[in-house]
């Protein structure tokens, strides 16, 4: 019994401590180094941040080159898929065309909707000078973090917390800024919480990412009468984002409230960054 215990001890010692042929480091040393790196990750000091930015920028560049074949393959597959869908799309477009023609005949719906949207957008000051555009470099979404890496960083005056838009639709916020790249945390991520307002009644809620393309709404008032199709906008309550940025519309699945995003997150190539909010804070 004692011998087998000794054997286990010897095996563990040699597994962790001994360097085998052609191994330059022992496992224990590298495990300790990883733990130290994890602790360093929690320290926010300027020289360390510069070092991190340099490391991340270099790895992102390498990643772009390596993931080029898979990107090309993905786009080819997508175009083939699109081509196969043409017949289906044609039928859907015909239906949409018929619907639009109906709506043109009855513009009162559009007038009402326009009035409601104007009310929501009344505080928003949109200036094209404050929006910069950046290309998505890496869109490999980890199961634990739904995010993008874009090709703009401190060089484009991007800062943490800024709004990321797909066209005019809200898709996330900046969470990590390097010299030439930044990471956008998408609204679908588990860690994302955004204060929102739901039209037409103006209910306030928190939109929480759940790792799927359809985030959920939390902290809704008890006696709400939200219906499928109601539009959702940023409320601007936290004071960082501008109010009235469109996000998506309500989707009901067996009485549970989800959000169907206006933007297709899997198809984003360019991201618009709104520099405005940070400028406002500075003032």
């Amino acid at each position, binding site marked *: 019994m004692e011998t087998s215990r000794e*054997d*286990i001890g010897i*095996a*563990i010692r*040699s*597994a*962790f401590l001994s360097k*085998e*042929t*052609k*191994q*330059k*480091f*022992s*496992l224990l040393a*590298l*495990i300790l*180094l*990883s*733990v*130290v*790196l*994890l602790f*360093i*990750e*929690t320290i926010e000091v300027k020289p360390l941040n510069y070092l*991190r930015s340099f*490391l*991340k920028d270099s*790895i*992102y560049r*390498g*990643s772009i080159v*390596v*993931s080029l074949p*898979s990107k090309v393959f993905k786009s080819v597959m997508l175009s083939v898929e699109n081509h196969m869908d043409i017949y289906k799309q044609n039928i859907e477009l015909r239906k949409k065309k018929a619907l639009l023609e109906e709506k043109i005949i009855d513009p009162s719906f559009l007038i009402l909707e326009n009035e409601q949207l104007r009310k929501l957008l009344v505080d928003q000051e949109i200036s094209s000078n404050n929006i910069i555009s950046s290309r998505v470099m*890496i869109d*490999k979404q*980890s*199961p*634990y*973090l739904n*995010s993008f*890496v874009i090709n703009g960083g401190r060089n484009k005056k991007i800062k943490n917390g800024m709004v990321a838009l797909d066209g005019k639709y809200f898709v996330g916020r900046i*969470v*990590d800024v390097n010299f030439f790249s930044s*990471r956008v945390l998408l609204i679908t991520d*588990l*860690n994302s919480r955004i204060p929102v307002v739901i039209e037409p009644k103006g209910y306030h809620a928190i939109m929480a990412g759940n*790792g799927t393309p359809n985030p959920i709404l939390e902290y809704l008032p008890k006696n709400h009468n939200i219906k499928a199709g109601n539009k959702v906008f940023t409320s601007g309550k936290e004071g960082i984002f501008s109010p009235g940025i469109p996000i998506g519309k309500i989707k009901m699945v067996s009485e549970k409230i989800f959000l169907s995003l206006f933007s297709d997150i899997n198809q984003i190539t360019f991201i618009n960054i709104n520099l405005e909010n940070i400028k406002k804070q500075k003032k």
Partner: protein
Amino acid sequence: MASLFKRIKLKLLNLIPLFLLFFIALDGSSVIDFKFFSINIHFILVYFWVLKQPRTLGYGYIFISGIITDVVFGLPIGISALTLLIIAAIATYVRLVSVNISLVTDWLSFIPALIIANFIYFTSLFFLNYSVDYLYLLKNSMFTFISYPVLWLFFNALISLGMGKLHA
């Protein structure tokens, strides 16, 4: 001349695991999500090669590939390196204590490796205030375990092509 070509061929064959290790790290495909399936090929790759041919994958390379994975996925730097090294440590331990290695023994010993690595992974994420999807963890671990024999056969086929003869 023929011997030189053979040596080059063997050298290239021996570099395949290393190439794969860095490719999946830089490409961000260490975790493959396909509809309901989710497989962590990084874990399988490290476990298999450290168990079978430790000379082809150095611990230093495993550490660097972990760091790259963390940067590409936007995770705290060091977390993947730590879990991959834990996987490597368990594989080394299993190699040292086993006499007969077969698919079944490899497969069964992969269970504690997965459990311990995922436990460390998610504990670290939890303490660093990252939200954790426990259901996803379970699904990923299950499918990684189930798909181990498939990759085991593929990697064994590589070995049978002549890998390891260079070191012998």
